[in-house]
Every structure is written in C-alpha cells, then in structure tokens.
C-alpha cells in the first residue's frame, strides 16, 4: 500500500448522493475517487433515451427535493444546474372537473369554499410540522445512548422547535398525527374525495403503503418539507441535467470519476476496510471506503456476512426494501388531449387518484403480489416545457405507476405487457385517443430498476421510509450515523438518514460526519 494510495477516499457508486459526498470531501482537501458501475453518474437522477429521438428522466422525474444548502455550498448553478419552472399538481377528473393543488391554494370547479380554506390552513399547519423535523435533516440522526455534543444539540433543537416553534396546540396535534395514517387525518380535514386522494398520493408514491398504512403522515411530511425550500419542477433536459451539474461540480472540486467500474468486493482486513476489488479483478487501495449503494448491497454483497456479526447481518437482511412502483415511458406522435386541460396545464404534474378508496384498493393488490387493477398514476409530459426531449411535434410522457410489487406472484416477465396495457387504458379514460398516439413505450418494473440502477428490490428510497426504518434506525441502529461496524466504511446513500429522494442530504451528512471524525486522511 503506497502512502499516496492510502490517502485516497473511494466512493462506491456515483449516484447523486455519492457525487455530493465526494464534492464536499474534495473541497475539504480529500483525494476522492468515485467508482460507478453504470456508464453515467447520477443514479436515480438520470436522463435516458428509450426510443430513437425520445428522451426522458430515467427514474426520478420531478425535481422537488434538492437541498438548497447543497446547491449553494457546491455552487451547482455555476456548474449548470437549471431547476426549470415551478409546476403545480393537477388531479385529473374524468368529467373535466380537475383540481389544481398549489403550494397554498387549491382550485377547481368541484371544490367547496370550505375545502379551499381548509387546504390553505392544512398546508400551513403541516409545513410547520415538517419544519419541526428540520433539525434532524442536515445532521446525523442522534443516538439515544452514548450521545455526543452534536447529538445533544440536534435533540435540543428538535425539542425547542417542537415546544416553542409549534406552540402548545400545534405540538399536541403534531404528536397526535405524527405516527398515524394520512387517511384518517384527511378525512378529518376535507370533504372533497379527489382532493384527499391527491394529497394522500404524495404519502404513498414510492412506498409500500396505502393511505391507511401507519406512518403515512411521516412520508407525507417528508415530501412536504421541500415546500419550505422551493417548488417542484421539471428540470430542462431531464433529471440527468442535475446529475451533470453535480458531476461537473465534483470534477472541478478535484474528484476523479470512473464509470463502468463495478465494485465486486469491499476489501477488509481485521475489521477495517482498506480498498475495493472491481469485477475486472482490479484492486484499489483506499484510506476509507464510502458506499452509495443500498444497505443490502453494501453489507451483504460487497462486505459479506462473514465480516459482520450475525444479528447485524440478519437485521440488514430483514429491512424492507421491495420496490412497488413501475415507470412507464411513452413516446407520442402528438400531444394527448385531456378535456378541460390547456397545454400549459398538461405540462404540470398530473395525478390519476380519484379517491382514497381507489388508492387503498390499488395497494391491496400489492400486498398479495399482484399489480394494481386500477393503478395510481403520477404523470409528466416534460417535452411540453423542453421540446428537445422528442422529435418535432412529438412528445414524451413519463408515468410512475403504483402499485407494481417487486415480487410479482406470476413474475414480471409475462406480466410486463399486460401492466403497460393497463396503465395506458387508465390514461385513455382521461385522454381519449391516447393509445393511438403511442409510437414507442418502455416499462421499468422494480425488477428492471434493480438490474439497471443496482438498487435492491428496485426500491426508489433504498428501503421503506417507515418510522421504524427512519432517523436513528436507518438503515438499522448500529449503522445510522453514516459510520458502520466496519472501521473505515461509511454509508452516504439513501439507505442512510434521511433516506430517498434526489436530495443530496445523505451525501452531505455523510461527508460532514467523515470530516468531523477526521477519517480518510
């Protein structure tokens, strides 16, 4: 081991979090190399071409959660980051009574004055709850035993926000709803079934949850917290543009990026990580190894159970990480027509979620290894704002379809086409003639996402974001502060706190932790 090599920090996986972590470390003077298995970095933030001339965001397709602190710290705008125009959410109605859900205001012909007022109050109240959890976000989650100063400070801030930030009434209400399900909460607040479903959709998309699943208030807050910082948008060029900006920032900070370099093994001697071995057999030494991969890949494949205590390995093994969303990419020869929607409106985030029972029934199928008979759809047509994504006059549509369980009873191989047909049939009901406009289509089931993006179970968030897999229990206690039982091995991906979404925060927090520990020198 040469001394130069021993000072190198290796990051396994160049997803958005790996890039963020790498850049922070490089800016602090560490020599960082990223090893990415795919041909491009960015992970779930990517732009892919699924048919000749048609491009679309490969996995994540809406930008809503990139941390503003990270954008500033890493000068991402200088590196070319473009957020694109802010978009609203529009819940589609078959009779043209669509609802528009803005940050603070909801509108639509079928919406009562009472619900409009309730919506504004609800959003403000719940954003306050989300704000209360802020102290937990940009820090390592505090340990409850053997706390250090940072942990005490984090808990202190959380306590202060809870007690004095919210005030007595809101704190009591927050503690009441924090662990329960979104279904009950929305039924207390609203009358309009479609409005309730559109909000509930935010709580369940990407999770193995229906509106009645406990913990759905937490997943909703997780999404809502981003409204504190800004609005959702469709970035020009697709999510790959975010990856490009991150990659550019990383390179200018001095990070070396190697693509097509799939790590096979994290090398460990006497409980300490000292390098990695690639599939090609090549070995690279490292002072520390940081894994952007999910917890199961990191510990059970790259490290291997033999290097770990038995119960630690077992607990990693039993974390829930089976994806439940399929992604359908559709190439269209013309713009779909939805009655009552302007072209500008068609370019927003569209939801097909008529009522909460519809969502719950859609989820019921997933419990038993079936795809939803009537799926919940989140639709974007990014080519409206960015015509470069498709040939002249043509369009691309990107649909996240829930629910599509990773472990489909009959296996995905034979069900792929029928599920695509099902999704298209649902869209057709809202946009007559839609199916005749289709030029090409591509369905990514969770099994495909697993294979293409190297994510266990094809789970967007590298593991369910339920309360028992969050905060100081993400991915499991004993590895929840970015360091792991293996000395010199760290986690920086969505498997770590605060979890999934194109936030960059796990990467940021991991870098802060590594720097605070003085590791990797």
């Amino acid at each position, binding site marked *: 081991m040469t001394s130069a090599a021993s000072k190198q920090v290796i990051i396994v996986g160049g997803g958005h979090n790996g890039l963020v972590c790498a850049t922070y470390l490089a800016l602090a003077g560490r020599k960082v190399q990223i090893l990415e298995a795919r041909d491009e970095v960015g992970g779930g933030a990517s732009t892919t071409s699924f048919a000749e001339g048609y491009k679309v965001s490969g996995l994540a397709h809406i930008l809503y959660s990139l941390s503003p602190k990270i954008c500033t710290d890493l000068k991402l705008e200088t590196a070319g980051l473009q957020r694109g125009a802010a978009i609203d959410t529009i819940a589609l109605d078959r009779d043209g009574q669509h609802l528009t859900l803005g940050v603070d205001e909801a509108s639509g012909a079928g919406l009562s004055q009472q619900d409009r007022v309730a919506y504004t109050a609800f959003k403000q109240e719940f954003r306050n709850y989300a704000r209360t959890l802020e102290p937990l976000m940009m820090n390592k989650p505090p340990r409850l035993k053997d706390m250090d100063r940072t942990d005490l400070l984090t808990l202190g801030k959380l306590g202060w926000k809870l007690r004095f930030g919210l005030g007595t009434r809101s704190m009591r209400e927050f503690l009441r709803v924090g662990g329960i399900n979104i279904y009950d909460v929305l039924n207390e607040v609203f009358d309009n079934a479609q409005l309730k479903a559109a909000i509930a959709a935010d709580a369940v998309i990407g999770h193995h949850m229906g509106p009645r699943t406990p913990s759905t208030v937490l997943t909703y807050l997780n999404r809502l917290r981003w409204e504190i910082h800004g609005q959702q948008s469709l970035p020009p060029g697709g999510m790959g543009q975010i990856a490009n900006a991150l990659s550019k920032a990383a390179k200018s900070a001095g990070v070396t990026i190697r693509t097509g370099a799939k790590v096979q093994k994290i090398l460990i001697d006497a409980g300490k990580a000292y390098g990695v071995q690639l599939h090609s057999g090549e070995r690279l030494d490292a002072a520390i190894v940081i894994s952007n991969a999910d917890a199961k890949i990191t510990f059970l494949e790259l490290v291997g159970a*033999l290097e770990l205590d038995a119960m630690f390995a077992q607990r990693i093994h039993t974390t829930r990480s089976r994806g439940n969303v399929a992604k359908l990419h559709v190439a269209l020869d013309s713009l779909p027509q939805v009655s009552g929607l302007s072209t500008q409106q068609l370019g927003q985030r569209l939801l097909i979620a008529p009522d909460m029972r519809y969502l719950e029934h859609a989820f019921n199928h997933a419990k038993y290894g079936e795809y939803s008979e009537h799926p919940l759809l989140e639709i974007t047509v990014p080519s409206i704002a960015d015509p470069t994504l498709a040939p002249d006059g043509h369009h691309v549509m990107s649909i996240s379809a829930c629910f599509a369980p990773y472990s489909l009873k009959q296996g995905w191989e034979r069900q792929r086409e029928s599920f695509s047909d099902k999704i298209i049939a649902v869209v057709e009901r809202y946009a007559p003639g839609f199916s005749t406009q289709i030029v090409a289509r591509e369905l990514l089931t969770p099994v495909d996402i697993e294979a293409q993006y190297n994510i266990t179970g094809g789970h967007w968030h590298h593991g369910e974001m339920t309360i028992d897999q969050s905060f100081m229990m993400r991915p499991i206690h004993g590895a929840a502060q970015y360091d792991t039982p293996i000395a010199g091995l760290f986690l920086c991906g969505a498997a770590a706190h605060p979890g999934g979404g194109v936030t960059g925060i796990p990467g940021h927090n991991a870098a802060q932790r590594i720097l605070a520990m003085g590791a990797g020198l």
Partner: protein
Amino acid sequence: MVSIIQSPLVQHDAKQVLLPSPFHPRIEQHCLVKNWMSWNGYQTARVYDTLASEYFAIRSSCSVMDLTPMEKYRISGPDALSFLNRLVVRDVSALKPNRVTYVVWCNDEGKVLDDGTIFHLHQGEYRLCSQHHQLDWLLISSLGMDVSIVEETHEVAALAVQGPTAYSVLSAAGFDGLDQLKPFGILHTQLDGFEVMVSRTGYTGDLGYELWTNPSNALALWDALFGVKQRGLYDLRCIGLDALEMVRIEAGFIMPGDDFNTAETTVRAGHDRSPFEIGLGWVVNFDKPHFTGKQALLREKDRPIERRLVKLAVEGNKPPVDSFLYDGKKGRRIGTIKTQIWSPILKANLAMADVEYRNGKLPVQIWAEIYYQKELEWQVTWAQCRISDVPFWTHPRRSATPPQNC
C-alpha cells in the same frame, strides 16, 4: 444458501407431556423413585435410586447417563467450517476430523448465548452439541453461506459412560480399539453389527466416553453395557441429573442458564455475561477471522469487565444456597452464589459464584452469609470462601492414554 431438512416428527402420545428417549424402556425399569423432570422436553430422571450411590458410581466405578436430550445439530456443506468459525469465539479451523473441541458463542454484543462442543465427524462434516436450543441462532448465523444445518437431536441416541472403570466396562461390552483413543478423540466403530460412534468426552472430570448411535440401536447398546454388570464383571449404575450436577461442579464445568444468564434470555442491561466474565477468556481468539461479538469483546479492553464467575470453596458444612457474598464478615456485598453442592469426595462445599471484579482483580476476601434451618428454625452464619483457579477435582486417568484397565 441454507438447506433445512425437517426432522421426521418423533411419534409419541400427545397425552404424554414429556418425550420418552429411545432408552426409556430400560430407564423406566432402573428409575425406582420416578423422580422425573424435563430436559429439552425429554422425560429425564433427576435421581434413579439414591443420589449418593449414583454419585459414587461416577467417582468410584462406572456410570451411565442418557444424553439423548442434548441439542444436536449436523453442520455440513462447503461453508461449514467458515460458518462454525464465524459462530464461535474459538478458532476451530485446525480441528481435525475425529476430534472434538469445547466452544462458546456470543451475540453481537459479545455476550454468551450458550456453550457446547463441536465434533468433527468426517472431513467437512460436523456435529454441534449445545445446552439450549440454538436452531434460530444457527440459521441467522448462516445468512449468505452455503451450509446445511440439520437438527438431529431426535435422530441420535447417546449415552455417557463415565467413571474410573469406564474403559474396562466398554472393553468388556465388546468395544475394540479404545486403548488408543485420546481425550477429545472420536472413534467410529461397530458393536454387534451396528454403528456406534465413541468420543472420549464428558462432563465429570474423570475418565469417560460418550456413545452415539441410531435410536433403533439404543436398546441393544444399553443391553450390551448392562450385560457387563449381569455377567458380574463390573458394576455400573444409571445416574440422573442431580448426580451430574455434583460432579460437574467438582470438575469446574459451567452450566449456561444456571451459573450465568444466557444472552438470549436476558432482558435487563448488564445481566448477561461475556466469555471473559465467566472465566472463559482462554477460548476467545482475536487472531482468527471475524466472529460474532469480536468487536464488542475487543472493546472490553477499553471498558474492563466488572464481574467474574469463579469457582468457590466455602468453609464449613452449611450449604451456601443462594447466599450473598461480602468482602468481609458483615462487609460490603460483592456477589452471589449461583450453584453449589456438597462434594463427598473433597468433603467441602463447592460453588459457582458471580463476584465483583475491580481493576482486573478478584476480591481478596469473600465471605458467604448462609441461612439454614435447624428443625424449621432459621439460623444465619458466616463462612469464608476461597477462589479456586483450577478445577476442584480432577484425576490423571482422565487423560492417560491408553487408559488403565482396572
């Protein structure tokens, strides 16, 4: 990949709460006082006739005990050795075929789950014997390994033949080739046409063997042994768990669950024990590849242990049952007696005790506060205790090879 082969259900009458061992038809005849208890669900005798005669059979002639209820697991497959070496704290990579070794295993926190023995039966094929049921932990420990773990508790009948004349009895019963069998050795042999595995192992500190065979041979094996007695050659007696408890404490062997709380059954913090805390630091090997609990045990170097299980000889003739221990007569409380017996051969009260361990030192003085009854009147007395670093009792014939024919 793990393969679990389901044991065929042992057939027994549902109204019979405790399972009869394959030796039960004979045991039932020998057990005169019907003092039964459950050992891993098997109907097991505490005492057959009188405790004293059973104890002295072990120490002066030959004893036979039914070992069938002991938990037994067959471990095989390409990763069997890696699996075992990751499971236990000892380095078992050098365990040769036909050898046996004593092991303990820990949870992630380095606290002892159980102890037992690993038998290397044939190249790459092992039997793990344990005090308590361990299948869950074994399966958890096998994640990601190509190993087969089969519980074979009910598929192997076993007898312990222990005592000064054990070798002579077995030879007279027709076993050949035992003269060269060293302690912790295994011999695969035949008796009257059926397969028997003999291991020179035991829980008594004396010369002794354990016999392992298919349950269908159980009665034939038993009859071959007791035929020696019938022919008037050597005396041998069945012994129950009470006599075993006496000799195992004399021999300094610990009993998980009695002498210390096993980690799996511990709820309260600090009530479980590491190998160092129960005096088994010598089996921990930090030089071998990773094993479960290694990091936690390494951390004990920074945070030294504060309790130790010790072998204690207690003065006087009052039994120190459940006694508190103090650093002087009416001094500060520093520990408790866990198990204790009266040793007829040493004429002493012997005990396993959990005591304070400060700055790497055992207490200088230990006094037991002993409550006892005189004609239903409670009395209290104090007895000084002495820590023994070595087993209270052992005998050179335990390890002599070839054993003396006597």
